């Protein structure tokens, strides 16, 4: 029998202190019994002599120092697992949402997991075709990558994430996949959008949903992504599935972290977020990838809203320092009706270099995106110049860059929400757009590729007009 303590002495914010305890372990799970018979969960944040500092996931409202009792369970928070988690819904602590979400567990795992030995990792290098040109062509996603979407409130990040989940395919392969969808503090409506989309495509039966919505306890969000990742690791590395995990919204997670840190009166780091937030986030984001000799993989797409659209805010900043690139959405693109509004220049996929090229996408892919980037960056500079001096003052070549940047946004970046472009369509589109330049401007592309590909597209645009449609619908 576990000993029950009624020695809560101090309650403040999401924290409480229990005194005269014995044998309490750091990080262990705590069961809290309320006066009315209901129960809550907590986690030990610190033990100091006979005092234990406890973080209460459901908040401390209603807890009192006399009638509330506390039990220490002797182990960390565990997630109960079996292949039947697919198609089920769990709350933010990993408990079944309703009776029909109950499973017969095959095993249980501590939600904190253990660090993957860097030596046991296998490098992610399998190209995932998302059907979105701005991703496939320029910021290629590979299996096992962690690639967040940095967004702003009101931008269509959910539509993009759902499109990725819907269209993602590894060329020439039919393999077992699963989706883990982790909601942290998003609205019912937002979460329902994903659920409806998964239901439409049938992916719902291959999905695990971990839901902590806006009206669920905020502190629970500390556990939520870890619950999801524990499911993902189980499915990927024990059940050989290719798992796509969507974590939204990481900003709400970070706010919960901040709240606890403030309650502990820790010395705050930048803008009030705890100094250890980098390390804490890393223990989430690094739980992605591939492992030598294992068939499955975990691809992570965290979504986070940048407070005030500010990329240097600690949440996106620290995330960018950990993840393998980022897809950034732009409000001004959104206003200009560029859809998806992917801000191409600051977006980046760091793993693209190993996932593209001959035998993966196409031999000319690397040179082509380098050139598209360089030309588009120059085009954007020229556009700025034109704002001051007027278009007429531009040199002839700059006029071409000006037009190129416009077309690039309208034709290459923009595409339909249900438009699934093949990688060849994406690459060809790039060539078509570049063919307006004199060959001497295309310095980033090797001669052999210019010789081979440019003539195929040069003809079509000899009338100096670009008439390309995107891929087919």
């Amino acid at each position, binding site marked *: 029998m576990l000993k029950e303590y009624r020695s809560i002495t101090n309650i403040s914010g999401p924290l409480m202190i229990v005194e005269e305890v014995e*044998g*309490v*372990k*750091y990080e*262990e799970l705590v069961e809290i019994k309320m006066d009315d018979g209901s129960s809550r969960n907590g986690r030990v*944040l*610190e*033990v*100091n*002599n*006979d005092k234990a500092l406890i973080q209460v996931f459901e908040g401390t409202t209603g807890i009192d120092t006399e009638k509330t009792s506390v039990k220490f369970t002797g182990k*960390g928070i565990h997630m109960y697992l079996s292949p039947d988690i697919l198609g089920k819904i769990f709350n933010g602590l990993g408990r079944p949402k309703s009776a029909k979400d109950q499973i017969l567990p095959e095993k249980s795992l501590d939600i904190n997991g*253990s*660090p*993957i*030995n*860097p*030596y*046991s*990792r296998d*490098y992610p290098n399998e190209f995932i075709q998302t059907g979105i040109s701005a991703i496939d062509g320029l910021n290629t996603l590979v299996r096992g990558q962690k690639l967040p979407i940095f967004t702003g409130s009101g931008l269509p990040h959910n539509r993009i994430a759902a499109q990725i989940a819907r269209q993602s395919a590894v060329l020439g392969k039919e393999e077992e996949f699963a989706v883990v969808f982790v909601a942290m503090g998003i609205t019912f409506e937002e979460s329902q959008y994903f659920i409806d989309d998964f239901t439409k495509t049938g992916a719902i039966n291959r999905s695990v949903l971990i839901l902590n919505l806006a009206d669920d306890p905020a502190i629970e969000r500390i556990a939520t992504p870890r619950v999801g990742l524990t499911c993902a690791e189980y499915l990927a*590395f024990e059940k050989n599935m290719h798992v796509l995990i969507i974590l939204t919204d990481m900003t709400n997670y970070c706010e919960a972290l901040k709240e606890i840190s403030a309650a502990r009166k820790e*010395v*705050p*780091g*930048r803008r009030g977020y705890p*100094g*250890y937030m*980098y*390390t804490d986030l*890393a223990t989430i984001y*690094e*739980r992605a990838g591939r*492992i*030598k000799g294992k068939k499955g993989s975990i691809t992570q797409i965290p979504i986070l809203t940048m407070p005030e659209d500010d*990329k*240097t805010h*600690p949440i996106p*900043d*620290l995330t*960018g*320092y*950990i993840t*393998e690139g980022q897809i950034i959405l732009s409000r001004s693109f959104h206003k200009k009706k560029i859809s998806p509004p992917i801000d191409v*220049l*600051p977006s980046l996929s760091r*793993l693209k*270099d*190993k996932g593209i090229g001959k035998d993966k996408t196409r031999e000319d892919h690397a040179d082509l995106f380098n050139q598209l*980037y*360089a030309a588009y*960056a120059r085009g954007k500079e020229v556009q700025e*110049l034109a704002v*001051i*001096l007027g278009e007429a*003052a531009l040199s002839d070549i700059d006029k071409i860059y000006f037009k190129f940047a416009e077309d690039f946004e309208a034709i290459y970046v923009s595409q339909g929400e249900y438009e699934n472009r093949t990688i060849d369509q994406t690459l060809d589109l790039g060539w078509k757009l570049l063919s307006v330049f004199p060959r*001497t401007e295309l*310095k980033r592309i*090797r*001669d052999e590729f210019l010789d081979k590909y440019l003539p195929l597209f040069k003809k079509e645009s000899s009338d100096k007009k670009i008439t390309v449609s995107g891929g087919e619908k």
Partner: protein
Amino acid sequence: MEKIGNIVKVAGPLVVAKNMSGVKMYDVVFVSESRLMGEVIEIDGDLASIQVYEETGGIGVGEPVFPTNFPLTVELGPGLIESIYDGIQRPLDVIYKQEGDFISRGIQVPALDRQKKWDFTALVSEGQEVSEGDFLGYVNETSLVKHYIMVPPKLYGKVLKISSGSFTIEETIAVINDGKSDSDITMIQKWPVRIPRPYREKINPSIPLFTGQRVVDMFFPIAKGGTACVPGPFGSGKTVIQHQLAKWIDAEVIIYIGCGERGNEMTEVLLEFPELKDPKSGEPLMKRTVLIANTSNMPVAAREASVYTGITIAEYFRDMGYSVALMADSTSRWAEAMREISGRLEEMPGDEGYPAYLGARLASFYERAGCVKCLQKTDELEGAITVIGAVSPPGGDLSDPVVQATLRVVKVFWSLEARLAYARHFPAISWLNSYSLYNDNIKDFVIDNVREDYFDMQSEAMNLLEKESELEEIVRLVGIDSLSGQDRLVLLTAKMIREDFLHQNAYHEVDTYTAIDKQYKMIKTIIYFYNQAQYYLKMGADIEALENVSLSEKIARMKYIPNDETSRIDELEKEIDNEFNSLIKQ
């Protein structure tokens, strides 16, 4: 019986234990029955604060602490090269074989293989007097590293016994008598990581260490034994440049520390380095490399230690007379680990919550770099450690305390700019803000051994880039048409320098490494183009025509000419003359 302490507090990576009197600062202890390794970092009466190198979840008050009476040490000896260690020198490959894919707690594995036999060749004979640092013999550890077995520091005396043959690192290869007693010498030495290994004297760095990276070698060179830092926002190319240096820098031993960064970046090194060939010897680059990987999801305290583990191994190879290059990616994560531990100790916070001793710790780390006369007294043997640290300031803001403290001690500053990275101008090293303070140190060597007019080329090219940025201001205000032909030529040439010289694609099989000779020829050709064009402009050539000469495409493709075919670059000067001539005749 071993004296045992008792845990009274657990707060993240920090554990406090009582009953610890007699324990020394920085002693290693083992925490709880699971024997998690930790280090004493504060003593108060019989209480000791311990930073634990493993996750402390599940540890509680009352559990035991076992002192060892030894500081944190590394093992030094054959078997280091090609290893991958965590921050406290546990071999990750061995852990993988024993424990599987995930790192569990309380694993103790020796850093060096105890079973492996090495062929030892003695270099001294019995009866000879030897002193600290002298070479007793060597083993050919890899095809690139001859591993000298040295007399340990502070030992002097006569060799009583020594023999060549096949030994494990724990077997005695020699016996030395110091007049009082005999010491058995094996091929393994242990050294406390927080104490620099001794050398005879420091000397000023005077030789450039070429890296095959054009912007570095031609504009902001680093000296052998020098220090450099690479600050930049996320995604600006710190890791890629560190990897590039680890691959191509002209050093004999590479120590690469992945400190609080991504696991996949270490995997990348593990996969690539065995495949890549050292440009000098043609041998796989892995054969000169030691990896330390304490990735961001691994315990924070071990991240703090990883930097010291790395530099101590570097010193050991330096003591053999080697030129060692050490890369630390990223020193910011190391500083953050210090900050986290300091916060748990409830020390007085300084700037941004970093401890007040941040600057001192950084300075004493970089101070372990340098060119030295090695310890041995018999020859004039020189060794060097070159240290290159990445810094990851929040939001890319260079006023960050870690950047500022680093800039106070390092001599080379490669400033990475987001603006350049967005335009995919790589390496995104700003040519206007970066600097190297080694130009004077290496001047004589470069003039004698590389090219006489290397520095003239450097300053001419730099001049053009600086002028370009002034002219761009004007263009922004009044447009290109207002510029004179001469000014437009400056813009044209500066663009060539930027795009055709400074821009270097790490993923292109030829472009990834440019030998210094080729670099010189490239920049010289561009300067030649400029000087000739100036002349023809004065002779009445039209600037528009100059802007459109067809040979500019050839200049742009110089970077793709293999290092052993640079005579093709030499021919360009003639082509420049010919084409310019034809402009006048028209």
